[in-house]
């Protein structure tokens, strides 16, 4: 038998039976929608903070009795608030408001003065800080336009996020639309069910993004500084040369940048931290401009990830330096090719860590991580010692059913202590299959990371390998059994 035939047969024999996953298509569709929302996260994160300031300012002014003559603040009804929820093990239980109520209409009443996207029954979601106060009838129409349905008949056993859209009215009344993006995928509107909870949530988010985009930015300093730069849309593929030199640009990063953000480039996923670098930007500019120009095009056909450094200037303009860990292993700086894409990346990460050391993490906890895969965009930045939320992600080896269980705070602290004490640099990895949970977590800075189990050890994003102590393994086993 030739090598090739032997290999063909060997590979065919080696592959185990796939797990049964009737929800694969729906899961991919949900993930696609999440990816689309994440693409607008930069807008949400930036102008969301702005709008949050605006709403907070209005609330503070109203709470202070309002200024004389400030009728718009004094007369406007306060934005609706979210119902209180309590997560148990990372999951918010069902509430009567998540079920149809025969005493209510079967459509969202018109005339709402505000609406909020709130936590619903299911795993936790990232709730926008600001209320929607524009195009509320449009949102009601979008939801009311979804096809009505009977009680759900086809459900899956998966667990996922749930939300509530709470409409507030001038008389103080509220109307709740409850959506579940898992299981039966129900969308409860008053007394009945409608299809497509994803569409209802997207209708809200689309309008919120538009509202935020339409609002002036009160944080713009008087000198016209546009604030930290935002990332451009990432290309899906860049192996075909979407990013390339532009003859009309300078071959070096212009001086005067006041912020720089690390953005995804070709070869997703790239590293895309939530925070911009605003200190010591000139050092990074010098590093990029100090890279030797690449004269020869000694390239390979190797594939790999890429990144973009977006430099921001006070007049709102941006300048991109594109790093490619594939092909010619180059950095594209305006009209010039330069070498060594690793150096600017390492420099940015070092500078961002240094900047964070002088700051406190955001007051709001980052969104709970999801067991949605590996290669989180920020994991190369994430330090397991900073983990604030984490969960075990498990797949039943026989049924293929995925499940997850939140790691309680005390248990997480114990695991982190063990990691810091016993994780081994350059510990090595042997890829072998052994059933066991991975650990997905998020740091106080919003960096997500996943620690995958290889044989009997976890691989950390910084290259260390952690073999859980007996006490840590007992925690993992206990939580796994509970899940």
């Amino acid at each position, binding site marked *: 038998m030739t090598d090739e035939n032997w290999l063909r047969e060997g590979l065919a024999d*080696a592959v185990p039976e796939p797990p049964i996953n009737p929800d694969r298509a729906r899961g991919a569709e949900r993930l696609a929608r999440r990816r689309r929302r994440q693409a607008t996260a930069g807008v949400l994160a930036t102008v969301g903070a702005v709008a949050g300031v605006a709403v907070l300012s209005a609330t503070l002014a109203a709470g202070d009795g309002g200024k004389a003559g400030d009728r718009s603040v004094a007369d406007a009804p306060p934005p609706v608030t979210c119902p209180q929820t309590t997560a148990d093990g990372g999951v918010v239980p069902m509430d009567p408001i998540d079920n149809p109520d025969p005493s209510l209409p079967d459509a969202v009443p018109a005339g709402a003065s505000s609406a909020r996207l709130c936590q619903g029954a299911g795993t936790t979601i990232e709730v926008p800080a600001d209320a929607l106060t524009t195009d509320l009838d449009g949102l009601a129409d979008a939801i009311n336009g979804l096809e009505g349905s009977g009680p759900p008949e086809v459900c899956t056993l998966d667990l996922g996020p749930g939300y509530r859209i709470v409409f507030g009215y001038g008389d103080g009344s509220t109307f709740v639309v409850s959506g579940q993006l898992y299981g039966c995928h129900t969308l409860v509107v008053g007394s009945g069910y409608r299809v497509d909870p994803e569409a209802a949530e997207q209708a809200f988010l689309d309008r919120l993004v538009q509202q935020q985009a339409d609002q002036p930015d009160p944080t713009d300093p008087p000198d016209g500084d546009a604030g930290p730069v935002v990332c451009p849309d990432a290309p899906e593929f860049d192996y075909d040369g979407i990013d390339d030199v532009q003859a009309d640009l300078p071959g070096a990063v212009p001086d005067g940048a006041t912020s720089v953000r690390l953005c995804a480039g070709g070869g997703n996923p790239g590293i895309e931290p939530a925070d911009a670098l605003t200190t010591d930007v000139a050092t990074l500019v010098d590093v990029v401009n100090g890279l030797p120009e690449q004269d020869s095009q000694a390239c390979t056909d190797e594939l790999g990830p890429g990144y973009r450094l977006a430099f921001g200037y006070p007049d709102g303009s941006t300048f991109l330096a594109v790093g490619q860990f594939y092909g010619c292993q180059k950095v594209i700086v305006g009209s010039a090719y330069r070498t060594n894409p690793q150096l600017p990346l390492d420099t940015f990460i070092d500078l961002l860590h240094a900047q964070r050391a002088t700051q406190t993490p955001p007051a709001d906890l980052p969104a709970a991580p999801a067991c949605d895969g590996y290669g989180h965009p920020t994991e190369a930045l994430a330090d397991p010692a900073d983990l604030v939320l984490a969960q075990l992600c498990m797949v039943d080896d026989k049924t293929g059913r995925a499940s997850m269980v939140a790691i309680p705070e005390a248990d997480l602290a114990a695991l982190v202590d063990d990691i810091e004490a016993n994780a081994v640099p350059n510990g090595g990895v042997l890829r072998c299959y052994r059933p066991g949970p991975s650990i997905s977590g998020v740091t106080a800075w919003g960096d997500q990371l996943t620690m995958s189990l290889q044989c009997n050890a976890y691989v950390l994003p910084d290259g260390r390998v952690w073999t859980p102590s007996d006490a840590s393994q007992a925690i993992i086993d206990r939580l796994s059994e509970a899940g």
Partner: protein
Amino acid sequence: MEQAVMSPDTRADETFDGFVAARGDALWRSAWLLTTDHQLAEDLVQTALAKSFRAYDRIGPGGFEPYVRRVMFTTYISWWRRKWRGERPTEVLPETGVTGPDTDARNDLVAALSGLPNGQRAVVVLRYFEDLTEQQTADVLGIKVGTVKSQCSRALTTLRSSPHLRREEDNND
């Protein structure tokens, strides 16, 4: 609404859901050979499908599978690149998991495959598991046919000299 609406003329197997139902397991098998992990394989398939979802209507059922496959393999290569996964070579390997005798041969081949660089492993899976031609493999990975040939040749040389597989051959002798 974002969901694809199925017209009366659209057959069920020509929808995105129909494609996933028909070809999802095949994609998972390739993903497993790339990742050698049940969960990672599912993650990889889901990610590739999610990245491709919005292209379904534009590409149509005829060309969708090559598109998804290209997304899946390029995603794999970007995920598992050593410097980004933080993995380091070592002379001391951690203890291996417990396996039964019926899985030894499988584990030997999988272990040998795992020793290949990502690009070579992707080429091997496409050529010898998916049975693609060199040209088709090149198209999936977006590289030249010559690169496929050289990667394949290096991969076979590495596999031939792998201690995992040599030991099996010795035993068979």
